[in-house]
């Protein structure tokens, strides 16, 4: 509902907005600054920090000392793996519910959503036990499966709402134009569904990348993704601001960029279509 306003008002609004934005964004900005400092400089007063020399040392140290890339690749594999697995299971399900709805479709959708509300801590021990039994504790396989399961309801819902938006008349037009089921799926439905599938993919990679209950509780050194790798920085005492900052910056940058692209899908994905 943007409306024309006076320049004066625009200046005021802009000033307040920018002030808020700078305050909110400041912690992120600050760790980027600290990550380019020496440990000694990183703990000095803000003005001294800004005026001290800049260095890439912390990034080098983080990578050398802590196998950063192992954890990074764990994160990549777990986030992408769980999302792809979820999409493979969700596409047919969402597809059939959107295009061949039955009396039970609504009930199934709501039930799937309800599984998302299950508090993780309520089933922590059983999952822990099952993982030990199956020998997948501290394995990427185990995390791929569990993150797929917790995000599956969101994936199905997002895809369902996207598929639902494909108008029935377009499918009818295709049939009038002589398309059989195969060409209908190949030439009409799939190309129209791809943007929706892509946004779903994006948002769920973000959610899986940042998941920090199961990744903390079900991994140790071997399969730990970046969430648990960063958490390991909570114990050591002393001067480590620069290294922690460098590690953090590396952990959040890829997802921050993806996140900026997925702003709109975020609303749809996290409110299950309840806010448009």
């Amino acid at each position: 509902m943007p409306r024309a306003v006076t320049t004066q008002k625009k200046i005021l609004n802009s000033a307040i907005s920018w002030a808020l934005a700078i305050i909110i964004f400041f912690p992120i900005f600050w760790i980027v600054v600290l990550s380019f400092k020496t440990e000694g400089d990183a703990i000095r007063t803000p003005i001294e920090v800004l005026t001290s020399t800049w260095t890439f040392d912390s990034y080098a140290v983080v990578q050398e000392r802590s196998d950063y890339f192992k954890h990074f690749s764990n994160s990549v594999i777990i986030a992408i793996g769980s999302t792809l697995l979820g999409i493979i299971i969700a596409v047919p399900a969402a597809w059939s519910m959107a295009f061949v709805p039955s009396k039970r479709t609504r009930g199934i959708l709501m039930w799937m959503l309800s599984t998302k509300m299950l508090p993780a801590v309520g089933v922590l021990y059983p999952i822990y036990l099952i993982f030990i039994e199956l020998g997948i504790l501290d394995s990427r396989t185990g995390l791929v499966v569990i993150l797929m399961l917790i995000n599956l309801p969101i994936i199905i819902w997002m895809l369902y709402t996207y598929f639902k938006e494909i108008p029935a008349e377009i499918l009818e037009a295709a049939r009038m134009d002589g398309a059989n089921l195969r060409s209908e799926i190949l030439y009409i439905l799939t190309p129209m569904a791809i943007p929706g599938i892509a946004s779903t993919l994006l948002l769920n990679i973000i959610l899986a990348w940042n998941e920090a209950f199961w990744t903390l509780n079900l991994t140790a050194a071997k399969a730990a993704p970046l969430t648990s790798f960063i958490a390991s920085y909570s114990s050591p005492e002393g001067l480590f601001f620069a290294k922690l900052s460098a590690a953090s910056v590396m952990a959040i940058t890829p997802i921050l960029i993806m996140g900026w692209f997925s702003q709109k899908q975020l609303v749809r994905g996290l409110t299950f279509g309840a806010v448009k």
Partner: protein
Amino acid sequence: MKQIELNQVSKYFGEIEVIRPLDLQIENGEFVVFVGPSGCGKSTLLRLIAGLEDVTSGQILINGKDTTKLAPADRELAMVFQSYALYPHMTVRKNIEFPLRMAGLDKKERNKRVEDAAKALNLTDYLERRPGQLSGGQRQRVAIGRAIVREPTAFLFDEPLSNLDAALRVGMRLEISELHKRLGATMIYVTHDQVEAMTLADKIVVLQAGVIEQVGTPLDLYHNPKNTFVAGFIGSPKMNLISGNEADKMGAHTIGIRPEHLSITKNTGLWHGVVGVTEQLGSDTFVHLNCESFSESLTVRADSDLSVAYGETLYVTPDLTHLHKFDKNGLRFDEKA
């Protein structure tokens, strides 16, 4: 030659009867319009012919062949949808080409047909655009283009103009009419707008509640409506339908008289009433008279130079040769006959 024939076709959605068993013949090259209020089953009837819905009972013949069980693609019909139903991810060229691709035509033939259609519809400059970049009227033409390249047996139009604004609608109406003249193909057109029906049709089918009320040429329907429903539905402004005392006097349950068949004077006449709203259209003026003896106001056409004032009392006399009489079932009867 009868091209499309419906024999005792009916349609139920679950328990709800949408089309009662009906018969209908459509001749080769005819422009047939299905018209009726919303929910009368006109779109469903079109979709039954298209094959997008299965008939509950009855038979649909196209060119003498029973197509009742055939898939839409095999009926050799083309359809233009209300929402245009263009494929959003394809360019205009690809949209128009799609049915030809499905029919397995070779690339050269496809290009030739697409370009011919584009030229005929003034779309040549837009062939590489996507539907999202086109205006409503252009989208409409793409939808028509997609239909004509197939050279179908008949064209089906499902309220194709209802998403356009008023000015564009008149223009597209003329274009469709011209297309029909040029191609000489059979067209079936669904609309709720009786003006569209009157201007386009060779034959109008008036539907109400899943029943065909009357079939005929536009003028036939206008001059000889079979019942009060058709009388009230066809024509704008509406025919005045009067029941009660005045109708009884003329030996009918209801009498109907069109606004142009009432002559208006300032001093004497059969009926009199007080002037309410007057609509001045330039060529004509329509006066709404509130008569004591009728429950509804009477619409009268007057010369545009007649000056009347709100609240003035005027007298009107019906032209008895154009008076329609209906019995208590709403059916028209003629004493002369």
